[in-house]
């Protein structure tokens, strides 16, 4: 350590040391984090967290996609910031600190979206601001990012965000397709498809999500039965659930 030639290489070494635990199986671990976010720990269908937007913005695929992308952005960077700051935040004030980080990121998203995509900003309305209190974002900061180094934390945030995005888009696709016979605005069933208003309005949102949760459970059981050997870590979802109410 005494004869490290340049500060640049020292920084590189520190960076390497941070990544050390993931060097052996880096690919599988990071890919595993993303897969967890999409399948076994899907925020909406499995953990049943952050349900408000899942019902509210999913009457059209376009708005659902915009919401999902906003969440991917906020979740990735909030995990990254939390992880970078994890040695400086005192444990007693960690929750307010996390919320301040998240609120800053959401405000950035709002300003960017209102400047470049005013129509989408209008369509998302109050729900974009409500990303601040999404249980899933605070939960990932608390459960994962505060205990891991920046790279896995960011990947975990990205994976979870992606799972959220997919859940939103799938729900929106079902509702838009059967509600008005269109997909992202393009007619699928022809112009004379009689619109079923109930699916597009509030009750349809609840019922569609209910059906998809049941479907996801069936698929999850099938997947688990197929590879009974490697079980994913069970305590994590329980811990996340606790945080969601805190």
């Amino acid at each position, binding site marked *: 350590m005494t004869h490290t030639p340049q500060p640049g290489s020292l920084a590189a070494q520190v960076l390497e040391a941070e990544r050390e635990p993931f060097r052996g199986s880096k690919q599988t671990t990071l890919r595993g984090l993303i897969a967890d976010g999409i399948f076994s720990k899907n925020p909406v269908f499995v953990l049943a967290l952050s349900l408000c937007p899942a019902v509210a913005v999913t009457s059209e695929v376009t708005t659902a996609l915009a919401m999902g992308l906003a969440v991917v952005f906020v979740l990735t960077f909030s995990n990254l910031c939390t992880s970078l700051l994890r040695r400086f935040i005192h444990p007693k004030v960690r929750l307010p600190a996390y*919320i301040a980080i998240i*609120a800053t990121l959401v*405000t950035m998203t709002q300003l960017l979206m209102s400047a470049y995509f005013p129509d989408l900003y209008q369509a998302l309305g109050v729900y974009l601001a409500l990303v*601040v*209190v*999404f249980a899933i974002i605070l939960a990932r900061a608390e459960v994962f990012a505060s205990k891991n180094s920046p790279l896995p934390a960011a990947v975990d945030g990205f994976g979870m965000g992606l799972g959220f995005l997919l859940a939103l888009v799938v729900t929106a696709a079902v509702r838009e397709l059967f509600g008005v016979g269109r997909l992202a605005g393009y007619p699928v069933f022809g112009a004379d498809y009689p619109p079923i208003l109930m699916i597009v309005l509030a009750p349809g949102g*609840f019922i569609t999500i*209910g059906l998809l949760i049941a479907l996801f459970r069936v698929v999850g059981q099938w997947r688990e039965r197929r590879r009974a050997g490697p079980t994913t870590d069970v305590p994590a979802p329980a811990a996340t659930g606790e945080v969601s109410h805190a």
Partner: protein
Amino acid sequence: MEDLVLIFFSASVINNFTLTYFLGLCAFMGVTNRIDTAVRLGLANIFVLLITSLATWLLNTYVLVHAPYLSLISYIVVIAGAVQFVEMAIKKLSPTLFRALGIYLPLITTNCAILALALFQTSRGYGLAQGLVYALGAGVGLLLALVIMAGIREEVEMSPTSKLIRGTALSFFIAGMLSLAFMGFAGLFSKA
């Protein structure tokens, strides 16, 4: 006066926070297993909503006119702080009330309905009295939804249901039916 009555009913039944705006679903799905817990949660909610409304009005009037881009951060921090403070005050002044509200008071702070109230109140430009009535209406609406949901779920738990939909999925179906029922209130004031 008529204005305030309209705001109250509009917030409590016509645009019910949970069943029409989908706010506070985490608590709605998670905590509504029994009626008495639902009632306590609902009461604590009303309480926090009123504090939020007051805090929002103060912030909007005295602070945020100078720095509108800080709105989200200041709402969430001030609301969380105010709730903590009130919790400590109640613990000291009225232990009975504190036991009745219990753990629900701090938990509610991260409920999306609370932040949404601050945002709606701001975007609609409500004054102090209108804001407080709006908060009361929203709170009563949440209480109503929670209690109805808990009552139905108590019954459903005794019934034979498919293993696949038991739990969250079934709760969503029930919420869908309730939402359908609450849509009936939509035309309440339009003809008057």
